[in-house]
């Protein structure tokens, strides 16, 4: 019987939870009874990853009525391949209550996912109760009940931090922002043409600076989101409203801007604000497609249109990227199987010396048809496949080998209270097709 785990934090016992935090650990389970389990790591974040591994090695033996670790001794040296392993949640298409976000965070820790990318606002709703601009949520939230106070946000970020999970906020502009217009009509082109946000007036950038300050506290590692990375969106910008709004057209003429120039101007201005507040900017890949190397060199490109943008396009120019492929890693793509998600390789074609520029990436849980009733079984098992791709060595690609481990992981997650859809589903979040063990769901025929 082993009844002690010796935990040693080797280096910095107050390591910050940011990108590049050391999550490595060593776990030794002795061969014989009477020994001690030893877990050591440079930081407390590595300790947490090691504890997760240990918790998965321990199994209750119903026949022996005891907790056991099979196949000992274990000598595990582990570290993630990619430092940024995220799940994106979308609280604009459907409001997600705090209790659900906490459940999502808990589940992420079980798969060593270390970042929540919080897509906070979008066209449909603006749930964040901005202290500097309360009218945004007062008029833009779905209802008077579907909001997040700053205290709510702080409690979520702290909940995540205690579990070694970073929270990166996304404030998506200038497109995807029509919900802002009810509270702040002055920053939108006109009442009949709501989006993208108006680049021609300083009112827009003043508001953005205020809002960012609500989120960042104005300084590096401060504020509601102390995370250094801040996602500014920048996707799917249809600039035709700018051309159709006389004041904006006039402003573009004055400055000699095409609509595309105005888009770059907009993105550069919000990037400056974020950088001045101690942040590094992440943007969707349209910014790369449109602006390429005129982007600030610290900008991180979140590649989602991977049919058009290869990882090498970005990394060969020295920029960092996140791999977030549409369909393959979009969790709302319900007909993508776990095997297809598992097969993705973020660093395809990337030169070895540039691989460090691929920070990682993750699963995107767009919320159009996801709300508290179905969000968790839509995230899992897809996110589990993605989580292994981002943590484990590059050559761990065999789905035949992985399938029974994933089935076991499913049972484990369910035993921890995480609704985890059958792994054999051809359509995500479908119900199990009939009675059976949690490990042996028959493939559901569509």
């Amino acid at each position: 019987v082993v009844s002690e785990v010796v935990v040693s934090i080797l280096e910095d016992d107050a390591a910050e939870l940011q990108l590049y935090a050391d999550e490595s650990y060593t776990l030794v389970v002795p061969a014989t009874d009477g020994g001690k389990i030893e877990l050591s790591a440079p930081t407390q974040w590595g300790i947490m990853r090691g504890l997760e591994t240990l918790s998965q090695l321990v199994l209750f033996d119903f026949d022996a009525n005891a907790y056991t670790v099979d196949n000992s001794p274990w000598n595990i040296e582990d570290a993630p391949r990619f430092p940024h392993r995220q799940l994106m949640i979308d609280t604009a298409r459907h409001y997600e209550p705090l209790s659900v976000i906490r459940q999502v965070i808990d589940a992420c820790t079980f798969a060593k996912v270390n970042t929540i990318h919080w897509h906070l606002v979008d066209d449909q709703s603006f749930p964040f109760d901005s202290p500097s601009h309360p009218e945004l949520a007062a008029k833009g939230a779905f209802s008077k009940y579907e909001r997040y106070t700053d205290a709510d946000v702080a409690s979520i970020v702290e909940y995540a931090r205690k579990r070694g999970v970073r929270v990166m906020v996304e404030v998506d502009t200038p497109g995807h922002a029509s919900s802002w217009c009810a509270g702040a009509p002055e920053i939108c082109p006109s009442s009949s043409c709501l989006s993208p946000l108006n680049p021609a007036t300083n009112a827009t950038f003043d508001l953005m600076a205020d809002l960012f300050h609500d989120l960042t506290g104005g300084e590096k590692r401060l504020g509601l989101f102390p995370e250094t990375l801040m996602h500014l969106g920048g996707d799917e910008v249809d600039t035709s409203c700018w051309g159709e709004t006389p004041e904006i057209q006039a402003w573009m003429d004055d400055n000699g801007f095409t609509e595309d120039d105005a888009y770059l101007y907009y993105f550069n201005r919000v990037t400056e604000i974020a950088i001045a507040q101690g942040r590094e900017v992440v943007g969707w890949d349209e910014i790369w497609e449109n602006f390429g190397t005129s982007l600030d060199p610290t900008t991180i490109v979140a590649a989602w249109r991977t049919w058009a943008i290869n990882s090498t396009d970005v990394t060969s120019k020295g920029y960092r990227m996140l791999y977030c492929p549409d369909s393959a890693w979009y969790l709302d793509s319900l007909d993508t199987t776990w095997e297809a998600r598992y097969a993705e390789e973020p660093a395809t074609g990337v030169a070895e010396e540039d691989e460090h520029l691929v920070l990682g990436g993750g699963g995107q849980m767009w919320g159009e048809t996801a709300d508290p009733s179905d969000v968790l079984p839509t995230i899992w098992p897809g996110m589990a496949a993605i989580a292994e791709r981002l943590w484990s060595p590059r050559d761990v690609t065999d789905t035949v080998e992985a399938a029974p481990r994933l089935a076991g992981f499913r049972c484990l997650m369910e035993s921890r209270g995480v609704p985890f859809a059958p792994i054999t589903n051809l359509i995500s979040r479908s119900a199990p097709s009939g009675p059976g063990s949690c490990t042996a769901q028959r493939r559901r025929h569509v």
Partner: protein
Amino acid sequence: GRNPARPFCSSIMKAMKALLALTLGAIATVTHGQVWPLPDSVSSGYTNITVYPSTAFFVYDPRYGEAGSVLKEAFTRYHDLAFPHGTMEDKGASMKYLNIALESFDESHPQLETDESYSLSIDEYGNGLISAQTVYGVMRGLETFSQLVVFDYDTRTYQIAGAPLKIEDSPRFAHRGLMIDTARHFLPLAAIRSIIDSLPYAKLNVLHWHMVDTQSFPFESTTYPKLWEGAYSKQERYLQSDISSIVDYARYRGVRVIVEFDVPGHAASWCVGYPEVCPSDPECAQPLNVANNATFDLIESVLGECTGKQASATDAPSGLFPDDMIHLGGDEVDTSCWTADEDISAWLAEQGMTEDEAYAYFVGKASDIAVSQGRRPIQWSEVYDHFGTNLNKGTIVHVWKDVTNVTEVVANGYNTLVNVGYVDKSWYLDNLDVAWAAVYSKDPCEGVPDELCPMVLGGHGEMWGETVDASDLEQTVWPRMAAIAERLWSPKDTTDADAALPRIEAFRCLLNSRGIAAAPVNNADAREGPPSPASCFEQRRALRF
């Protein structure tokens, strides 16, 4: 990403809704602060009370008794439920605590006759009181209180509207349950705890645990330890200590747990460990072997573990399942495997019994065992349909078949539970195409004369598990279980579905905010997700008006 931005969409939809509202008349607004299920009587005024979530918010007078752990934990739990955004500055709140008064501090396992009535009053100065007979009545009052409190984002305060408030409340039916099925899919303890958490939110007070069936036997029997070889896998099992922890978890929430060991049909999984209790042909393995005394020895022993072989008393709960009732199944018994089995068929001839008489004999013996162990047996419809007034008078007939005449059953002196499946107003939660309003419209005493209605104890939502496991349990149970909950708690004339719609929509949103994955109310198909982006409070399908 991916979907093109539709900047006009939300403003056009708002305009359309406004137009439709004008043309079709007022559509009741969905708001928090209403109570589900509807209390028996409510009188209210027009004063808003600001509430401050003091640490010791629920206070009782210790001269009248000592709060035990059940009551103390209820105070902690309801503090978090009523005040989910934590504590902010006190901005001159008038209500900083709520008085609790109760007759009896006894925390024994609740039973059928446990008094759950309460009254809740809050005057216009914020003085509040919940008074009740029992700790469980207090809990029902706390639930009501937690639904009245609304967080106001604009002022960052908690508010109660409608003071002075006076609520007098008690359930119409004493027995209001949800059945879970851990045989068709194993449900991990975490999933069972989550579903138990959700039951008191709708003042449900029974968990009917359909423990085993044809497909699997997950239960640990200490006297017949090979029975759980019929489990799906070594990991998909319940230790007795697991079960005790669940029963106690339920007690803390005022929920009774009634176990079902369905016999003699639905029992092929028993044969794995003890083939001798089944017909000898593995291809024709059920019902359980009526001809072998070993079968009844096993049943007596397993039930004995459940009951401790005696009735429970106040402060002396007995067995793994201290509830006064125990469910013995008895449904869907196809006796052809008895006549096909040489030994059984010989025994039938020897006894001079037909197959049907042998069925009666079996369920009668099982029932006698339960009675001898101090429990009231519950048995499914067929047992009455076949044997009528030959049934033990204490038996509770569990009506699930449309053909059973409830009036006749109760007129013959039997208590019943009523939850008919496979009909328009089905209370079988796996009948996915039955919408909440149909569920709501079913009265358990439908067709029963008023003076006999008290013989109907209540009913359950039945969550059969063929396509339900931990990945989809909550969204299949809720929100239709809420319709059942109100039908069983609220006054008989609470039947207006139009009036109920905004309230059940708000209740669904409340469940979501408490981490329960309740599906959209207006689904055509239960448990499907929302069709498109929307407020939780406005998830109406456009064509529903």
